[in-house]
């Protein structure tokens, strides 16, 4: 099989885990991402197709939806981010591309973002010091791009108040992770 060993953006050989006070931070290297953009005129067709392929309806603006094996996130007008378990380089994007041929443009994003899961009480206090989004009001299913310590990140709410995922651009991941940890220490 493949000779190369993959590195994670923060931990390197192992995904990074930190516990600060009541908060747990977990780097996730095991998810694959692919962006899906509807071709003009195919917007509805894409939604239908996505439903059958991913088993969930395409989310509305500012939302994400979780399915059995894959989840869908609203990235922009007629553009979604699909997430599944990582099986191998480009595999999700290639599979989606075949499925959505002629309907949408698919681009692999697995290594564009590094996902950091944040769980535990205090998540709100932490995020209030890092993002302008009204995190107190974020319900499970909320998904937005915004800035965290000057870096454009995706912020996903998995469970209101207690469980969030930050998707940081991979090259910035260490900086964003550092900001999360340092602020958590100050709570």
């Amino acid at each position, binding site marked *: 099989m493949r000779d190369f060993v993959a590195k994670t953006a923060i931990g390197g050989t192992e995904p990074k885990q930190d516990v600060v006070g009541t908060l747990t931070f977990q780097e996730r290297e095991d998810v694959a991402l692919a962006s899906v953009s509807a071709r003009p005129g195919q917007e509805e067709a894409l939604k239908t197709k996505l439903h059958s392929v991913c088993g969930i309806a395409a989310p509305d*603006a*500012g939302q994400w939806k979780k399915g059995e094996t894959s989840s869908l996130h*609203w*990235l*922009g*007008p007629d*553009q979604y981010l699909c997430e599944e378990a990582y099986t191998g380089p480009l595999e999700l994007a290639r599979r989606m591309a075949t499925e959505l041929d002629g309907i949408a443009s698919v681009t692999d994003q697995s290594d564009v973002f590094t996902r950091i899961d944040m769980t535990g009480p205090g998540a709100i206090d932490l995020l209030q010091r890092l993002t*302008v989004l009204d995190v107190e009001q974020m319900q499970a299913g909320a998904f*937005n*791009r*915004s*800035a965290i310590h000057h870096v*454009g990140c995706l912020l996903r709410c998995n469970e209101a108040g207690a469980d969030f995922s930050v998707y940081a651009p991979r090259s910035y991941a260490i900086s964003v992770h550092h900001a999360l940890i340092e602020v958590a220490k100050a709570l």
Partner: protein
Amino acid sequence: MIINHPLLGPRDTSEFTYLGDASLINRPDWQSDTAAPEFHDYLYLRDNPAGTHRELWFHEQGDRSWLVVTRNTLTHEILATELARDVARKTGRGK
């Protein structure tokens, strides 16, 4: 300031990048006999109103939409926000 994004609702302007007068959508026809002066006026001259101003903002830290925001330059009150692509289509822009 807070821009009421047509799709995402109220978002802080720190997420956006400003370009300028929405008249930048009305790019002249390169084949017009007076293309040069038209492009000059298009690119360089401004109404620069003290009052209602239609302007382009890019949701850089957001959904990457270009918006046309109608804002009062005296009070900063925002009167309307639209997706720039819709505005462009309305003004007859296509391919």
